[in-house]
């Protein structure tokens, strides 16, 4: 169930250039049903900035009722968020949307998780849950440069992890597809989150394979009521536009026209 929760900041730290990891505690955590769901955060009690900010859930700890988000402080909303301190309260709406289907990969099978930049965070909880059920995960994580790489160690603990940077300042130089080509097609499922051009390249490269992609779109309500966040499907019908916030953000490969 979607709830509006005043969550408490239990930790906030900068983990890369302009990249922050924030831990939040509250009963909303108990409502999270799958990795890849997101929350809609009101960064200020005033109406300026006006809109909530959609941020993926990066990991959850049901035992202590805590979730982690990882975000880039870029515009005015996320900058205000980055100034919150331990103990501050934040108005969070969620959990929202449909996440990555863990059930689509069986015990013993291999899954490839491909993340780009600020699309990496939701893959972390996904990987944890896949590993927990006995899926072997390979991570391919692309970043702009060394300065903005994060969570290499965390992912490495869960499985084989390939880091790429566009400028070659860390890991392999190039885009995620560089490594993907080498890894071959010997896996059951792929899961991905990142910028549009990356998702497009991946879908093309893995044509015919079972895959799940997470999309981004500018949002109003975040719950499916305002029709702001639509993306076009490959179908030409009443379903030609689907909503990223409530129908997605994760869709099976082939559903969204990219």
């Amino acid at each position, binding site marked *: 169930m979607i709830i*509006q929760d005043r969550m408490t900041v239990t930790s906030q730290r900068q983990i890369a250039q302009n990249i922050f990891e924030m831990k939040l505690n509250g009963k909303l955590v108990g409502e999270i049903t799958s990795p890849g769901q997101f929350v809609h955060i009101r960064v200020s009690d005033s109406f300026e900035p006006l*809109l*909530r900010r959609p941020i993926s859930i990066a990991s959850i700890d049901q035992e202590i009722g805590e979730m982690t988000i990882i975000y880039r402080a870029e515009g005015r909303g996320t900058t205000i968020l980055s100034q919150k301190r331990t103990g501050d309260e934040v108005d969070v709406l969620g959990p929202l949307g449909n996440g990555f289907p863990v059930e689509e990969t069986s015990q013993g099978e291999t899954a490839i998780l491909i993340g780009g930049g600020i699309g990496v965070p939701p893959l972390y909880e996904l990987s944890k849950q896949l590993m927990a059920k006995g899926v072997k995960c390979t991570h391919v994580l692309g970043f702009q440069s060394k300065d903005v790489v994060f969570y290499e160690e965390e992912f490495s603990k869960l499985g084989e992890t390939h880091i790429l940077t566009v400028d070659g300042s860390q890991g392999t130089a190039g885009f995620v597809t560089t490594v993907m080509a080498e890894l071959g097609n010997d896996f059951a499922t792929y899961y991905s989150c990142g910028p549009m051009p990356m998702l497009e390249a991946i879908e093309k490269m893995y044509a015919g394979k079972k895959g799940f992609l997470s999309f981004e779109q500018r949002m109003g*309500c975040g719950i*499916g009521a305002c029709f702001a*966040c639509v993306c076009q499907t490959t179908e030409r019908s009443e379903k030609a536009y689907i909503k990223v916030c409530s129908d997605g953000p994760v869709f099976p490969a082939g559903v969204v026209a990219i």
Partner: protein
Amino acid sequence: MNRLSIELPGLSLKNPIMPASGCFGFGKEYGQLYDLSLLGAIMIKATTLEMRLGNPTPRVAETASGMLNAIGLQNPGLKGVLEGELPWLEQFDVPIIANVAGTETADYVEVAKAVSQAPNVKALELNISCPNVKAGGITFGTDPEIAKELTRAVKEVSSVPVYVKLSPNVTDIVEIAQAVEAGGADGITMINTLIGMRLDQKTGRPVIANGTGGLSGPAVKPVAIRMVYEVSKAVNIPIIGMGGVTETADIIDFMSAGASAVAVGTANFVNPFICPQIIEQLPAKLDELGIHHISELIGRSHRL
């Protein structure tokens, strides 16, 4: 006695608070969050004759204390609304105000006729002010003669009272209001969005794919209050006011300006519980102001 009840043509409102059209879909999403029967009414998303896919994305952009949208009237069309949306809303004890849009008079008339016969639709809201569609919409809302004729045509076929939604993007909104009153409108809803634009800093191109969008939110409230004030002094039909409501105090302002009820749009996105919260807070606010029944507020600003 209910201190919040308001009687308007076609509408027996338990309270004067309702979500604004386009900011509440057809109720299903907010219906997961709270009991929709709490609301005074619901203004549903615009309905057009045929299904519409709306505009390309991005469709929204944030501005100082406001937002721009260019959804482009995405909706499942008349048949979809009648069969897929309105029946679901029947489970709630809440009057529905159906927002009717079109490209030409014949569309408006056909949609109005059919949708006004749905059992829970208690009033129509004639959308002659959508700034985000190429044809129709706002073009009907800027010429008094055209607005009057459209109102008249819709009134002829509607089984329920007709409210006309005015655009703020005009030189003289009083003139338009008087024209739709002359055309037989039972009430006025106002304001729709102000036309605005935001550019991308890097490329200089508009952020919204449609180029321009409609400005809503707290930023527009002073314009909305001014227009409700002016129109309410000039017409004899009731006004449902809107534009930038975010808190209970704003309801007092709109009703003082001359509105008989108030719609909440953009604020639903920021705080999905805003409507029931305002409804809950209203009685204490009335106490604070020493007012017994909320209707005493209507048009307070006109008196000296």
